[in-house]
């Protein structure tokens, strides 16, 4: 934010000066009158100049660039990984407006964890940290060894298999408890099957997906 002070014989004169110097119409300026000024007696004794403070709207301020966000996200994850004492490295990029961080060099799969649990935890924490220091929201995706894509494919396979089973036995079947993002993959995989209906069942973060054969 930029602030300026102007003086004049009257407030009007001070405002006029401000408009001229800042090259903006009166309406665009945020004007605060510090001293109204007075003409004094006969215009000689006790004349006081009018003083105003003008604040320019914030548009001049620089927004942190997207590149900085990516670097910050990358550094945060890299710092955490080095504190876990792994030699894993991070590469960063952007995709569809999301920041993507890829961990490589974690041969044991330690950073992925069972069913991607550790990867999700890292992603959650990095998102929290990055979004805390930014005014706008960005989404950070953390991946390792292409786990997200592999998991997605295996979930689709599970969905199709369970869908077949439901049709065959004519009864609803359920998946294991899944987090929202993974349930979504199941729902979408079976969305176009006219013989099946899908619903989430359960409470909290983890819910099962119920795959129901429609009666024909």
């Amino acid at each position, binding site marked *: 934010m930029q602030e300026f002070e102007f003086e004049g014989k009257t407030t009007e004169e001070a405002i006029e000066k401000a408009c001229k110097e800042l090259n903006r119409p009166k309406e665009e300026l945020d004007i605060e009158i510090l001293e109204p000024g007075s003409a004094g007696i006969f215009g000689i004794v006790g004349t006081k100049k009018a003083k105003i403070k003008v604040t320019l709207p914030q548009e001049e301020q620089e927004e942190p660039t997207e590149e900085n966000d990516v670097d910050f996200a990358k550094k945060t994850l890299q710092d955490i990984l080095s504190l876990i004492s792994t030699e894993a490295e991070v590469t960063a990029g952007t995709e569809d407006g999301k920041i993507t961080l890829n961990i490589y060099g974690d041969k044991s799969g*330690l950073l992925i964890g069972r069913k991607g649990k550790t990867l999700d*935890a890292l992603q959650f924490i990095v998102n929290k940290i990055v979004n805390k220091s930014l005014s706008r929201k960005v989404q950070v995706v953390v991946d390792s060894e292409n786990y997200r894509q592999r998991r997605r494919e295996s979930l689709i396979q599970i969905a199709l298999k369970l869908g077949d089973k439901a049709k065959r036995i004519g009864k609803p079947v359920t998946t294991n408890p899944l987090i929202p993002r993974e349930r979504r993959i199941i729902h979408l995989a079976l969305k176009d099957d006219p013989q099946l209906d899908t619903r989430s069942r359960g409470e909290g973060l983890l819910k099962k997906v119920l795959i129901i054969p429609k009666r024909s």
Partner: protein
Amino acid sequence: MKDLIAYIAKALVDKPEEVEVKEIEGEQTSVIELKVAKEDLGKVIGKQGRTARAMRTILSAASTKINKRSVLEIIE
């Protein structure tokens, strides 16, 4: 272990200078005690304990790496 939790906690709270982490080492299991400013308690716990759970998951991955077990306790 201590540094890992301190790093994450400091990045999440509004008053990083009030973050205190103590590590009580046992033979197999270490207890990591995390203390933050009262106003920041919610930040390290998170909605339905999600942030605390994520920190515990990362902590257990880090402990596995060195063949140990660690427990995170958030002190009120």
